[in-house]
């Protein structure tokens, strides 16, 4: 239900970060979404086109990596991945634990940009400088 506002935050952050590369085009935006993030990936994808339309990053592809919950089990001394989010117990020994090592992520991992435009701009600037 709140995926559109989440996607809008992503668009803002990416636009801000991409501003460091003037003229570059954002090709891809990669997110990391944990199983406990309360976010529906299909809805993110559905909202992506609407939220990016008319912005600097229009046309960029959204890639969502979903992350399972990883629990740390003290008695076993190891971290294990959970199959779902229905029971917070170590899959090996059954110990209930709240020592979460992964699963709540809701973050922008990286963006892929095409700097061809940026280089061209820099090149033009150089050319105009040379005759002087």
């Amino acid at each position: 239900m709140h995926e559109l506002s989440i996607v809008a935050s992503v668009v803002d952050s990416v636009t801000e970060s991409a501003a460091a590369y003037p003229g570059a085009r954002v090709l891809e935006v990669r997110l990391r979404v944990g199983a406990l993030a309360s976010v529906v990936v299909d809805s993110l994808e559905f909202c992506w086109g609407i939220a990016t339309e008319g912005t600097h990053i229009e046309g960029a592809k959204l890639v969502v990596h979903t992350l399972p919950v990883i629990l740390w089990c003290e008695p076993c001394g190891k971290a294990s991945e959970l199959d779902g989010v229905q029971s917070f117990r170590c899959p090996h020994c059954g110990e209930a634990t709240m020592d979460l090592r992964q699963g709540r992520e809701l973050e922008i991992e990286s963006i892929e940009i095409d700097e061809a435009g940026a280089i061209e701009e820099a090149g033009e600037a150089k050319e105009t400088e040379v005759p002087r």
Partner: protein
Amino acid sequence: MTTRIVELRQGILKKNDELARSLRQNFTAAGVLVLNLVSSPGTGKTAFLERTLRDLRARGSRVAALVGDLETDNDARRLAASGAPVRQINTHGICHLDAEMIERHLAGWEGVALAGLDYLFIENVGNLVCPSSYDLGEKIRVALLSVTEGEDKPLKYPTLFNSADAAVITKMDIAEPCGFDRELALKNINEIRPGIRIFETSSKTGAGLEEWLGWLGEQRKAWKVCSCG
């Protein structure tokens, strides 16, 4: 084409999280314990809070509440009958409260200073999904579940129950006619959030309220010691 990967590794809700962190610092500095109450619509958050505000006031505690709803100030009016300062937040369609709404409504709250409060309750918009993503700067998140909702609610909405610090079962006075399986409900909550403190209450009869209020007092005491040290 010259492509490059730019690592960002930043939280999507970074702005909300940063604001929530600064609110939390303000709450700690003011010495007010802040609780965020979350549940489905109709669980009885308002009735539970009405009772909590009234009883805490009767014991001499200084309390206030912010209450979130899509529309109307019905809940604020109900809660204000307790005598505590109450402010309504209307989200106009937004399904959750966020840190900015809390900051804005605290800023313009006439006659209420954080430093003059012992407890501030935030009643979130009735929704079991979205509020779990938004940190409001609270110290304690409370998930409520009524006996009419079904014992498997925690399994259906694991994120919310997993992120809670305490769980409250409401409407225990009608548990029997509803065929509420208490053992199963407790088991399910514990599967999703092992070791969580669970209160079985009725805002109508007052059952379980004594235990809840006692626990609130302990939390406040422990937190004061902790935040001063």
